[in-house]
């Protein structure tokens, strides 16, 4: 059976046309909140207070937030309510609470980027571009989120702020580096969060926390006024518990920005209206070789479920993926070292020692190795683009395993004991290395969820999101709230 027929009419996303006020927004999606606020069934202030109450109740366990911007959030919510009352368009995200990884500039806060050192920076005079765009669409910023130091992390552990904890099992990692983003959305504290992804930092927490994450094409979303890690493959993107919420946030944030030199001048290409389009004609394949090796059984099971639902019979080989991962490793550590060289000289004791020692090593790598890695990158990108002439979507694991225990140092993969920290991103690094758009979708295995990557050609976020939407509506992928949250 070609279960591409799983593409069904969209679920009824409109609220029932009754006039009753909705009292409890805790289980509503971003889309449902925005419709309720603009329909005057719920106030933005009420939604905001509920989000602040959830944060107060659960964050002492999850440790997702490093800053809660309650006063600012209430002021913004009142402004949204006033706009609605005046009959103005309050935006597609009217009254939707969201939070951002603490490497985004938030006016009035020091952009700590998970570090101790950056706390000495002066408060940011202006929000990051993506926060401005989310708020222009009516969303309400409620705080900044925990992350791995300087985004050089796959675990969500942080020696300065404490580890973010996985809402499905608080003894386990959220994944990183956008660990607070994963925990906050996974635990239902907010319906939307923003994070960054250089080597997997959106897709890994999405996988471990059982939520959806979008790493757009390199250059699609502006990074202006965010703290970088590896500028040549840093991406920003959203997390959500539903695909339509992911698309709404993504659409709100698109558009050129002269303040990020890498940001595309392409016009906004809205994906929300396209989500329900049939996917039957798409050519979809599973990534073989490197992506089928180096996995625990649960990762194979997750990919198999998605492949079966989509009726995939084709396997494609992404050429030289292992070399791509190695080259990404070299460029990350050397570009990161270059960025932090002065801090390494002046304040080495204030780094997380594990991050510092990797960056120090990166500072010592001879230039010819970096040059070779960059040359390989160009070759590899050309090869993968050639592959996308014969396929529209490639399916691959997001992580080799479900969330490890906090503090777990090693795991045994294919009979080899490997360090957890360095190897969680083995399936994400070869993809972000060349800037491809990816939606990470959660397969709700028991007892822990795990993610699958839906990978498309550059600028085809719409295709990846359509496949994710079809899988969600077929019940194959989902992000249910964990027990207790």
């Amino acid at each position, binding site marked *: 059976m070609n279960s591409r027929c799983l593409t069904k009419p969209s679920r009824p996303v409109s609220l029932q046309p009754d006039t009753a006020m909705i009292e409890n927004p805790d289980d509503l999606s971003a889309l449902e909140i925005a419709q309720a606020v603009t329909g005057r069934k719920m106030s933005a202030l009420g939604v905001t207070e509920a989000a602040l109450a959830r944060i107060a109740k659960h964050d002492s366990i999850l440790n997702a937030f490093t800053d809660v911007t309650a006063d600012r959030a209430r002021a913004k919510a009142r402004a949204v309510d006033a706009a609605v009352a005046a009959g103005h368009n309050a935006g597609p995200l009217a009254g939707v609470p969201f939070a951002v990884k603490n490497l985004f500039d938030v006016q009035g806060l020091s952009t700590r980027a998970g570090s101790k050192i950056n706390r000495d920076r002066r408060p940011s005079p202006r929000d990051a571009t993506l926060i401005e765009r989310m708020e222009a669409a009516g969303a309400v910023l409620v705080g900044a989120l925990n992350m791995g130091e300087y985004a050089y992390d796959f675990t969500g552990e942080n020696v300065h702020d404490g580890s973010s904890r996985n809402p499905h099992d608080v003894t386990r990692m959220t994944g990183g580096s956008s660990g607070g983003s994963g925990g906050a959305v996974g635990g239902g504290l907010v319906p939307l969060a923003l994070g960054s992804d250089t080597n997997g930092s959106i897709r890994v927490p999405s996988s471990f926390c059982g939520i959806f994450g979008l790493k757009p094409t390199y250059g699609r979303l502006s990074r202006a006024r965010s703290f970088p890690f590896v500028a040549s493959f840093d991406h920003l993107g959203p997390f959500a518990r539903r695909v339509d919420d992911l698309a709404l946030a993504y659409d709100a944030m698109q558009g050129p920005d002269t303040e990020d030199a890498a940001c595309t001048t392409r016009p906004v290409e809205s994906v929300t209206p396209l989500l329900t389009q049939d996917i039957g004609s798409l050519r979809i394949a599973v990534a073989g070789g490197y992506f089928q090796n180096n996995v625990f059984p649960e990762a194979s099971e997750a990919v198999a479920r998605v492949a079966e639902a989509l009726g995939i019979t084709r396997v494609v080989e992404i050429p030289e993926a292992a070399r791509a991962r190695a*080259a990404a490793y*070299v460029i990350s*550590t050397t570009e990161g070292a270059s960025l932090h060289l002065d801090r390494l000289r002046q304040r080495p004791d204030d780094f997380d020692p594990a991050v510092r*020692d*990797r960056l*120090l*090593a*990166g*500072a010592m790598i001879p230039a010819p190795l970096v040059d070779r890695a960059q040359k*390989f990158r160009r070759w590899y990108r050309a090869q993968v683009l050639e592959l996308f002439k014969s396929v529209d979507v490639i399916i691959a694991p997001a992580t080799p395993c479900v969330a490890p225990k906090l503090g777990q140092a090693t795991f045994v993969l294919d009979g080899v004991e490997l360090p957890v920290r360095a190897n969680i991103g083995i399936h994400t690094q070869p993809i972000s290395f060349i800037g491809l758009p990816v939606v990470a979708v959660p397969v709700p295995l028991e007892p822990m969820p795990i993610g699958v990557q839906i990978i498309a050609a550059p600028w085809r976020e719409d295709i990846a999101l359509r496949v994710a939407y079809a899988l969600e509506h077929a019940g194959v992928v989902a992000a249910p709230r964990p027990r207790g949250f």
Partner: protein
Amino acid sequence: MAADPLDAYIDAVSNALALPIEEAWKRAVKANLEVVAEAGAAGG
């Protein structure tokens, strides 16, 4: 003076770049350097 060539390399580069590397960190820095160099050899 470092007996191991990689130890000598770390000493030389840290001096050249004015990177203050304490004795206690050298083992971890060396281990990381070996991993990155191996990746560099594989990824070129």
